[in-house]
């Protein structure tokens, strides 16, 4: 496999958003051909921007949750371009609680420009939905592995990315806000997206260097869209390796480590001599 270090940040952004890039269901169906999709938050709605369900993978049942974009225009609209409404987070937590009941590990696939920035999401409590999801992940007594497969945008991504391990595909991005939104916020000018993208440090290698993700999974030369099978295989190897170790970890240790992973997520920064204890040696 070739590593292409010559890409500009914006070229990486374009690969992360490539319309031919594999989406969540492309991975899930390859990993677990017997995948059964489940629907609904049991509170009144089903959010198609988030797919969830169970399938057997490497000899055990796994709960898959994935932010899902559409392959063609009608599907993109139906999937709301991967932007979840509050109902999506509530559905995700319903399924995560179900996974806890049956001791299924959870795999989250992150691919969203952000939560839906529209009035309907506000009216139904998108902020609280994300807040509750983030808090609840810390109490789910099962292994959780998150993988950023395309765009990891803002709180909408983080709401699904509170994992014991978080990995990124090589040409995916993970950011406090998408470059257009960040440019609009700091500059009131979203046409400065390229410059802002370079400032934000959003590529997989940036995040690995910051200690925000455990591992970067290499993509086939040219990007994930050139070979779905090879990308799925590479990501499968990484996730299963982590799941294998995590499923052998006692629950108490798992949750303590998950707490510390995020509590001291900035510890590599050494922002201050007084800046908190560092992450202890966790499970494998």
């Amino acid at each position: 496999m070739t590593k292409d270090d010559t890409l500009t940040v914006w070229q990486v952004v374009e690969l992360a958003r490539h319309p031919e890039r594999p989406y969540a269901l492309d991975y899930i169906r390859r990993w677990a051909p017997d995948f059964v999709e489940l629907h609904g938050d049991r509170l009144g709605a089903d959010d198609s921007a988030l797919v969830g369900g169970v399938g057997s993978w490497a000899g055990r049942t796994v709960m898959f949750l994935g932010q899902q974009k559409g392959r063609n225009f009608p599907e993109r609209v139906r999937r709301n371009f991967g932007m979840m409404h509050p109902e999506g987070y509530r559905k995700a937590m319903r399924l995560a609680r179900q996974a806890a009941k049956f001791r299924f590990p959870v795999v989250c696939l992150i691919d969203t420009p952000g939560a839906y920035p529209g009035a309907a999401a506000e009216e139904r409590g998108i902020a609280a939905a994300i807040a509750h999801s983030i808090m609840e992940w810390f109490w789910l007594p099962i292994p959780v592995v998150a993988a950023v497969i395309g765009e990891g945008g803002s709180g909408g991504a983080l709401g699904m990315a509170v994992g014991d391990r978080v990995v990124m595909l090589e040409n995916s991005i993970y950011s406090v806000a998408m470059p257009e939104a960040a440019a609009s916020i700091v500059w009131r000018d979203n046409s400065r997206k390229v410059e802002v993208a370079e400032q934000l440090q959003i590529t997989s290698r940036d995040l690995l260097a910051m200690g925000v993700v455990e591992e970067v999974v290499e993509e086939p030369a040219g990007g994930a869209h050139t070979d779905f099978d090879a990308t799925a295989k590479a990501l499968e190897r990484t996730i299963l390796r982590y799941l294998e170790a995590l499923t052998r970890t006692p629950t108490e240790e798992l949750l303590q480590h998950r707490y510390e992973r995020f509590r001291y997520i900035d510890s590599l920064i050494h922002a201050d001599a007084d800046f908190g204890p560092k992450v202890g040696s966790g499970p494998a």
Partner: protein
Amino acid sequence: MITLTPAYKDVPLVGSPLPEIPLPTNCPGCGVGLDREELADRAYVCDCGHHFEMRGEAWIAFLADLDSWAERWADIRPHDLLNWRLPKPYSLVIDQLRSEGLNEAVRTGTCRLGGRPVWAGVFDFRFVGGTLSIVAGERLARGLEAAASERVPYILVAASGGARMQEGVLALLQMAKVNAAVGRLHAAGVPYFSVLTDPTFGGTAASLALLGDVNVAEPGAKIGFTGPRVIKQATYADLPADFQTADFQLARGQVDMVVPRTELRPLLAHLVDLYST
């Protein structure tokens, strides 16, 4: 309006004399000329109900009984991790704000409220829009952890535009850091009261600010995830006049009550008593 038993009428309207805040000469609510001292004694709320914007140190003075504020971790400083230059260098922005006497977007410490010991975390919107930063997140998480282990109620005063762009993804991850700590506070059975002031948005609204056992909004405060400017840009929607106001959020189940600032301290004292077991 809140019904309070007579005992709580004795809790003073303000904890300590409030510092001066920027004020117009006339009230935008009723047009009446303003008497600074009188207004300060009334927590900067006009007789007509207009709430003037209080920031950082005014909120601390408001909450804390006289001489009871003990600030913690004031020495943790922000750093320019990303060598941010757009549209101006982040390090200059920080230096400028610090030279104005501001100490990050969150200050935290312990105090007494009507004699009751509490932990407090107070956002300051003047520091890069009250944005959730590494320093803000660290102060919040440490305070929440201390409150949990000391079993002391925690009071948050939120005023924030969300996560701080200039600290990149590590600012975003503060949402998880503080929510992890809020979760432990809840698990410890310690009460958590969140006061939402204008404005509370983005990553702050989508993390600790809406996770109180009781969420109290100030009248007229705007509270939401995505700001109206971005919503209009993204969806071309016409937004109703009351969109994202405190009353809008009350009607949609996001806050427990909308309470005038002049009734807030007696209410918080009452809640501390009701929830302390």
